[in-house]
């Protein structure tokens, strides 16, 4: 039982983190109709900035805040310099262009920080486990990630559903031409949205950094999951991304946690231990396939209510 609770917390934490990454991706994809493969690079930059600023200032929190600002600025700069050339072109051009950006950022990071990678040590109040229920200890840092992500999710909800900018974002997701025709400065809106997406990716990266490591190419594996979430949740829908991210987080973690034992009951030992990790990593793709068949638009298609 203790184990189950802990695994659920792990799933929740992983799902919430994926949400941050997927939210930025789905915003950019849904509103700007831009396939951004370089989203993972911004995730990586967030982590590198945080490690650097935290080392300079000696404070983890200050480093994180500065890194967030830096990724926002880099994101907006990338939009102005590179992304603007890609609007209105074929999706294949987006893939090609943003793939180029991945190579650019990977090499830039190698030049600036070297190939070895960095580490982002946690302050002691975050690196210890805490008692959350009698008998259940859980990593304080993972709890902090959940708190921050839920706050950001709330902030995004208010921003998108309750503010004028949010209204424009939603309108842009439904019909861009009409928004532009109504005299909205769509260029500025796009720069803002892209910067926001970048900051969300950067936040995910810098929060993941103490758990994983800060290294070149760190964003590429996790980006695949973010795309899966975008597809499951419905492109352009923040709410869809939230639900899908939690689903993927739970399925991935609980699959890894309990699937091997389940399989051991049916198969012999060696066969099960080889097949279990392979099969449990397939579970989320099976979910995606099912969603694509049942609801090709995703669980919460943007534009619909």
């Amino acid at each position, binding site marked *: 039982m203790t184990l189950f609770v802990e695994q659920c917390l792990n799933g929740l934490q992983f799902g919430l983190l994926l949400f941050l990454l997927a939210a930025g991706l789905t915003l950019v994809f849904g509103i700007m109709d831009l396939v951004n493969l370089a989203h993972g690079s911004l995730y990586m930059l967030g982590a590198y900035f945080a490690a650097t600023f935290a080392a300079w200032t000696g404070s983890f929190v200050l480093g994180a805040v500065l890194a967030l600002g830096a990724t926002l600025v880099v994101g907006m700069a990338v939009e102005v310099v590179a992304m603007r050339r890609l609007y209105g072109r074929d999706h294949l051009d987006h893939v090609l262009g943003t793939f180029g950006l991945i190579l650019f950022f990977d090499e830039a990071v190698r030049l600036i920080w070297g190939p070895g990678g960095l580490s982002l040590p946690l302050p002691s109040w975050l690196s210890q486990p805490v008692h959350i229920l009698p008998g259940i200890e859980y990593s304080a840092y*993972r709890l902090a990630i959940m708190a921050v992500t839920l706050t950001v999710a709330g902030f995004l909800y208010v921003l998108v559903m309750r503010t004028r900018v949010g209204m424009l974002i939603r309108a842009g997701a439904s019909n861009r031409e009409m928004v532009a025709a109504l005299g909205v400065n769509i260029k500025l809106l796009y720069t803002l949205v892209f910067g926001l997406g970048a900051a969300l990716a950067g936040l995910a990266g810098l929060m993941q950094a103490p758990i*994983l490591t800060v290294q*070149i190419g760190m964003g590429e594996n996790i980006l695949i999951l973010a795309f899966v979430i975008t597809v499951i949740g419905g492109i352009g829908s923040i709410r869809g991304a939230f639900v899908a991210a939690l689903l993927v987080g739970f399925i991935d973690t609980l699959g*890894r*946690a309990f699937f091997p034992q389940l399989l051991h009951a049916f198969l012999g030992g060696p066969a099960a231990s*080889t097949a279990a*990790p392979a099969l449990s990593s397939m579970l989320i793709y099976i979910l995606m396939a099912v969603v694509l068949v049942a609801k090709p638009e995703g669980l919460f298609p943007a534009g619909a209510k």
Partner: protein
Amino acid sequence: MRKTLLAAGAALLLAAAPAAAQQKSIKIGFVSTFSGPVAAIGNDMRNAFELALDHMDRKMGGLPVEVIYEDDGFKPEIGKQKTEKLIESDKVDFVSGFIWSNVVYASYKPIIESKTFLIIANAGETRLAGENCSPFIFSTAWTNDQNPHAVADYMNHKGVKSVYLIGPNYAAGKENLAGFKDAFKGKVLGEDYTTWPSQLDFSAELAKAKAANPEAVYMFYPGAAGVQFLNQYAQAGLKGSIPLYTTFSIDSLSLPRQKDAAVGVISALQWSADLPNDANKKFVVDFKKKYGTEPSFYAAQSYDAANLIASAVAATKGNLSDKAAVQKALEKADFKSVRGGFKFGPNHYPTQNYYMQEVVKEGDTYTQKTMATAEENQPNPHASKCSMK
């Protein structure tokens, strides 16, 4: 006029003739990972190989040496392509390097089919030491199951009764954990294999290990994954309550990033920077002088690989066309290894000591200190399966 032309022509021919008959230079292909998250390992291997060449004035048996470094991109299919290129278009005399078991296993066939010598400097794929061994394959490292075997021996000796195992789900991971289980006399309470190399978050596996409440945890995560594992082990509250044992997960490349998370973790290796022999002292000092960093075990094995090749070239006086003579010379292993004595078993894998190392913090630096010898003159366990054809 015509005479001078003829004379010049004759002179040219004369100059060219000996070169055609004899080998002009030694060509070595070196396949490793020089890009992506684990590029640091490949760079360390290249640095050590270059240092070895510096130490021999970049000459083997009096002939200049040319090394062609190729990046496998951490992928078996790319490693295979690069190897084929080295064999077919560069026509190298030796191929060395290889970090990853799956890469070397995908790449070894074209090497031995062309009767080129393969000197593996790390990857410990067991089949290349056993049923797929070849007169053309040599290793200056180990097979994946040997170091974990030494760790398990040490834990038996310490009286550890139960263990939980975690490792990556690929050839080396499975062989590593199998080697451990083979030697461990206590109870294995559970084992988890994670998707490699994409899975980086081990929270689910660590929670299971914690719930199983073993006396120790054994894990194997090379490269950056080792940093992540140790961070998460500490964050989950396991560090300090359950002792952690490992192989190949802590080295001079990852230790500067693992820091406190690695202190107290125990592992086994055939080499360590503090081994007191002269070749090792020179290697460690010069490596630090040239590159400003501590050499890793990957570097030590690559340094040995370069010296092994040089010993064979010198013994055959650069006549590499006599394959049987080169093989004989390699088998003699007539060079000063940084691990101390070096001799090959019948399957061309070294018979060697395994030392236990513990991570300690001295002042502000973290190092791996040799604390015990776990196994002495341990032969490779796959020799009996090798028919050497």
